[in-house]
C-alpha cells in the first residue's frame, strides 16, 4: 500500500515519556551493559541528521514527499535521542550537545569526503541512486526496530521496555516509508536493483558502525543480536530486505553479525 505522507506529517509527534516513571531508576538503576547499549543508541539517534546530509546530496531532496518525510523523520529521531539521554541522565551519564559534537569531530577526514563521494554517485546514476538510499534506509530502520524490540525483551524492566516499544513503533512508520519508496523505485529500474544489491551487499554495516568504535558495535550486537533469538531477529530483517525487487538472497544482517564474530 502506498505510504500516506500527509497522514504521517499530521500525526508525527515527539515520542512521549512524561507519563513514565523514569525517576525510579535513581533507586533501581539499570545494569551497566544496558546503559552502554543505550548510550550507543542515543548517539545513533542524535546523528540521524548526518545521514540526512548524505541522503540530501542526491536528487531526492527535490521531491516534496521526500522533503516532508525527512523533516518529520529527523525530528522524531532527535526526540528518540532526547528520550534515551533522559534515561541516561537519571543514571548520571550526561549526553549533552557538546559531547555529541566531540564524537562528530572524531570522525575526521573520511567523513568529510563522504558527502562528496555520495554526491558524485548521486549525479552518475540520477534517481536510481535514491532507490539505493531508500533500500539502505529500510535496512537501517528495520534493524533499529529489531534492536529496540530485542532490548525491550531482554531488559525485564517494564518502564524501559515501554519506552523502547514506543520508539520502535515510530521506527515502524519510518520502515513503511523507506520500504514503499524502495520497492516502487527498485521495481521501475533494473539498474537501480543492480546498484542497490551491490551497495548493500558490499557496504552495509549495522547502524552506528561509521560513528562508533568497533568495540562498542560489538558490545551492542553481542548484547542484542547474539544467540538463537538474536539470529532469528536478524533473519527476519534479512527476509524483509531480500523480498524487495532485485535483492533476493541478500543476508546482509547475518553476514555482518558473522563478520563481527557474534555467536549464533
Amino acid at each position, binding site marked *: 500500500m502506498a505510504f500516506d505522507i500527509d497522514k504521517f*506529517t*499530521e500525526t508525527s509527534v515527539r515520542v512521549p515519556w512524561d507519563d513514565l516513571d523514569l525517576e525510579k531508576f535513581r533507586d533501581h538503576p539499570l545494569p551497566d551493559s544496558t546503559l552502554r547499549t543505550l548510550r550507543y543508541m542515543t548517539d545513533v539517534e*542524535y546523528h540521524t*541528521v*548526518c545521514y*540526512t*546530509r548524505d541522503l*540530501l*546530496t542526491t536528487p531526492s*531532496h*527535490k521531491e*516534496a514527499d*521526500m*522533503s*516532508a518525510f*525527512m*523533516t*518529520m523523520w*529527523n*525530528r522524531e529521531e*532527535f*526526540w528518540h535521542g*532526547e528520550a534515551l539521554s533522559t534515561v541516561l541522565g537519571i543514571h548520571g551519564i*550526561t549526553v*549533552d*550537545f*557538546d559531547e*555529541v*559534537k566531540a564524537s*562528530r*569531530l572524531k*570522525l575526521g577526514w573520511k567523513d*568529510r569526503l563522504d*558527502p*562528496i563521494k555520495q*554526491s*558524485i554517485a548521486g*549525479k552518475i546514476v540520477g534517481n536510481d541512486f535514491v532507490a539505493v538510499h531508500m533500500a539502505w534506509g529500510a535496512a537501517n530502520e528495520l534493524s533499529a526496530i529489531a534492536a529496540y524490540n530485542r532490548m525491550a525483551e531482554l531488559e525485564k524492566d517494564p518502564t524501559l521496555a515501554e519506552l523502547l516499544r514506543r520508539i520502535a513503533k515510530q521506527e515502524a512508520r519510518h520502515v513503511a516509508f523507506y520500504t514503499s519508496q524502495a520497492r516502487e523505485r527498485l521495481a521501475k529500474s533494473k539498474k537501480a536493483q543492480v546498484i542497490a544489491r551491490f551497495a548493500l551487499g558490499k557496504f552495509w554495516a549495522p547502524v552506528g558502525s561509521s560513528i562508533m568504535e568497533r568495540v562498542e558495535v560489538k558490545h551492542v550486537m553481542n548484547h542484542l543480536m547474539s544467540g538463537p533469538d538474536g539470529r532469528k531477529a536478524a533473519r527476519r530483517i534479512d527476509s524483509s530486505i531480500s523480498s524487495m525487487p532485485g535483492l533476493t538472497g541478500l543476508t546482509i544482517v547475518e553476514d555482518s553479525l558473522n563478520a563481527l564474530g557474534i555467536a549464533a
Partner: protein
Amino acid sequence: MTTTGDVGQRTRFDVREFARTARGNHRAELQLAEYTDAPLSAESLHAVRYLGRLESATMEHLRNLLVTATHKDARVTAFLVTWAFEKFWIADALDAVLQANGSPKAQDVVEGKPRKTRSEHSDRRGPIRRAVSAIRLGVPIIAVHVTTGLVDEWITRAAYVRLAAASKSAALASTVSMILDVKQRHADFFEDEALARLTGSRRAVKLTRNALLKAAWPIGAVDRSAEDRTFFESYVFGGDAGIASAAAIELQVAALPGLDTTIGAAVAQKLLP
C-alpha cells in the same frame, strides 16, 4: 548542560526548550472561511506562493549547510531539526491560504526558469563543490551560515510585513502575525550565534564579509524562478516604503560585529528592484 549559558550579558538561546515547544500544524487557526467573501488579490497570492516556496526549501538549505563543518556542531544541528519542522508547517499554512483562495499549493504550480546572474555563481554551487571548499574553510563557516540565516530572517520578515499591509485582509494579517511569531525564535537563535561567532574570530568575520558581498537573497533565491524573484524585489522593496525597508536592513547588517556600511550597502543593493 550546554544548552543555556551566558553570551556576554545575554542568556544563550535554549535549544532544548525551543525543540520542546516547537509549533506544528496551524490549520485550525487560519480563519480560512474568511477568504470566501474576501478573497486575496492575484498579487497577494503570488507573494504567498513565493514565500511558501522559500519556506519549504529547508531540505535544500540543510544540505548546503550539512556538507560543511556546520554538521559537526550538535547544538546547531539540533536547532536546525526543529527549525525545519516549524518551517514545514509555516509552508503548510501558506498552502492552506492558497487553497482557500482557489489556488493550487505552492509546489503544485510549475516554476519558471531561474535567473542566471554571473555574480551569483557561488550560491549556485552544488553539494560537491560546497563540500570541497568547506574542507578548507573549517569551523568558521558556521559563522557564515548563522549570519546569512539572520539576514534572511530580516528580509523575509520585511516581506511578510509588506504582504500583511498590502493584502488588506484581516485573516491574512492574523496568519502573518502567527508566522512572524514562530520565526522570531529562528531569528533569535541566528542572532545569538552570529554575535558570538563574529565576535570571537577574525577568520569568521572575513568569511562572512565575503559571503555577504556576493549572496543572493532571500536564501535559496538562486533556485527559484527569475520571474518570482523580480516580482519579490519590486513587491517588497519597490517604492519609498520598500527603499526604507531595505535601508533598515542595511543598518542592521552594518551593526553586526566586524561588518560595516560597505557590507550593509552590498546587501541592501541586492534587495532593490
